[in-house]
């Protein structure tokens, strides 16, 4: 290498040679991290000094990030609903029409004594008819019937530990095998449909999230490209005095990460605001459905993950821009004719 200690030491430098006690490795590492800190601070300062432009970029990023995260949160809430319903699955057993109330009572106590049953309600046929009359509005039509077409019914809530799909199925088989039981029904069909739908929705949301992540990378890439253009002279000089690619790249990668940080924070604020705005109506709606459904917001961990992901995306965008444009700026043109 062109380093030449003898020619260096011949230059007068009074302070040279003093305090070389610390190991050069440690010194090197220290100044490396010091430089990282300085660059990080510098690039943050640059964003701060152009608040409007930075805010715009943060807002674009925030919206692009908030949308998929909001949908994911909604999805999680929906999955929570279906899980809740699954656990409260009720088994309905219809008795033979000619089974007497007495037989039904006996059967009921037999079923209730089973370890897998938490709760049992007997709905006799008269009450069933009354309820049906009240809720269906088919009052007149029912009057034409000669006898009550409804059987006695048992509403069975399984014990906590029997609430798995297999557990419920076993319980159903057990009850089906009993005398005088006409039919046993577990209505999980709509749950399965909801599950299939949330699964489809999840795929769609992830696809959207990926698309928007790409958009974020491109937006940051473009912003960083402009910043590279505006710092052309600095890049030229840095390359002239022997700045490595890593050195030249560093401030822009930090810029990207800071854009990401701001974007992540904006996204989080947007999410919290819309959660606050929606929670009232959602509660009312859930109340109407007698559901304990509620929108869940981001946990602290979730918010942190969102912000870190946003920073990574910003960094990635900067990387793309730097990769494409930094090699275009070479000091070849600098020395005049």
């Amino acid at each position, binding site marked *: 290498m062109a380093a*030449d200690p003898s020619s260096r030491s011949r230059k007068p*430098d009074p302070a040279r040679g003093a305090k070389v006690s610390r190991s050069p490795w440690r010194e090197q590492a220290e100044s490396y991290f010091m430089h990282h800190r300085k660059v990080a601070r510098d690039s943050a300062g640059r964003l701060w000094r152009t608040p409007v432009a930075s805010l715009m970029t943060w807002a674009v990023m925030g919206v692009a990030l908030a949308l998929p995260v909001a949908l994911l949160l909604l999805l999680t809430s929906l999955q929570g609903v279906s899980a809740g319903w699954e656990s409260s699955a009720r088994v309905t057993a219809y008795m033979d029409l000619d089974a007497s109330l007495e037989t039904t009572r006996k059967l009921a106590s037999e079923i209730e004594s089973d370890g897998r049953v938490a709760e049992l309600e007997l709905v006799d046929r008269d009450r069933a008819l009354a309820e049906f009359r009240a809720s269906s509005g088919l009052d007149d039509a029912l009057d034409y019937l000669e006898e009550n077409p409804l059987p006695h019914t048992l509403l069975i809530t399984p014990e906590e530990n029997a609430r798995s799909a297999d557990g419920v199925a076993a319980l159903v088989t057990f009850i089906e095998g009993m005398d005088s039981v006409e039919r046993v029904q577990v209505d999980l069909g709509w749950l399965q449909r909801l599950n299939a739908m949330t699964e489809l929705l999840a795929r769609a949301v992830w696809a959207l999230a990926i698309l928007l992540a790409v958009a974020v990378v491109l937006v940051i890439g473009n912003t960083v490209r402009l910043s590279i253009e505006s710092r052309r002279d600095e890049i030229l000089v840095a390359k002239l*005095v022997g700045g490595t690619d890593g050195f030249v790249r560093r401030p822009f990668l930090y810029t990207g990460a800071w854009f990401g940080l701001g974007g992540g924070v904006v996204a989080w604020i947007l999410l919290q605001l819309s959660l606050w705005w929606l929670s009232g109506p959602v509660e009312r709606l859930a109340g109407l459905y007698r559901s304990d459904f509620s929108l869940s917001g981001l946990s602290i961990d979730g918010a942190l993950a969102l912000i870190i992901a946003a920073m990574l995306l910003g960094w990635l965008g900067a990387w793309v821009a730097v990769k494409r444009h930094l090699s275009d700026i070479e000091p070849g043109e600098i020395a005049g004719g």
Partner: protein
Amino acid sequence: MIEFRQVTKRYDSDHTALRQVNFHLDRGELAFLTGHSGAGKSTLLKLLMVMERPSAGEVVVGGQVLNRLPRRQIPYIRRHIGVVFQNHQLLFDRTVFDNVAMPLEVMGASPRDMGRRVRAALDKVGLLSKEKMNPLQLSGGEQQRVGIARAVVNKPPLLLADEPTGNLDPKLSADIMNLFAQFSQVGVTVLIASHDLALINEMGRRTLTLDHGNLIAGGSPLQGGSSGR
């Protein structure tokens, strides 16, 4: 310190900037590089800075053949070459101090070391009192001296200057040249591209003269004379 061996630089089929240039500069030698504009002065300097690669022949700096240098190594070569430009290439978004500190920052010098060496360089060019100013506030001659301080702050064994006195009056030019002479006295090899013939003659140093890419004078140390005429 510098050696050109049969160096040819061809940009395209009909433009040859340098033709089979041969010369050798020793450590601590100060030489001028002159010739009409377009004679190949800048090309020669760019080859030394590895901004360009020769089409044929070898460029050797400090014992290292630059032709075969991988791209990743280029920054490390440049850290050992100080360059002074006609248009200074100073950055106006930072102070004089920060401008001069750039080569040290690039090398990862510690802040303590940096402060000491920057001030030593600024002291050398007589601008120690202006370290906190923006280069825009300085005169042309002062800006040029800031450029020189930046070029020598990491004590490179080789100093290149491209028309360093291009925009300066004779008095200031002479000052700058004296500065270069001082550096060569402490062992720095200095190569100055200039077409200020009056100044070159006054200095009475070895002069490499290019004409249409050919080195027509100064190729060997005996030509051109090394002490005053």
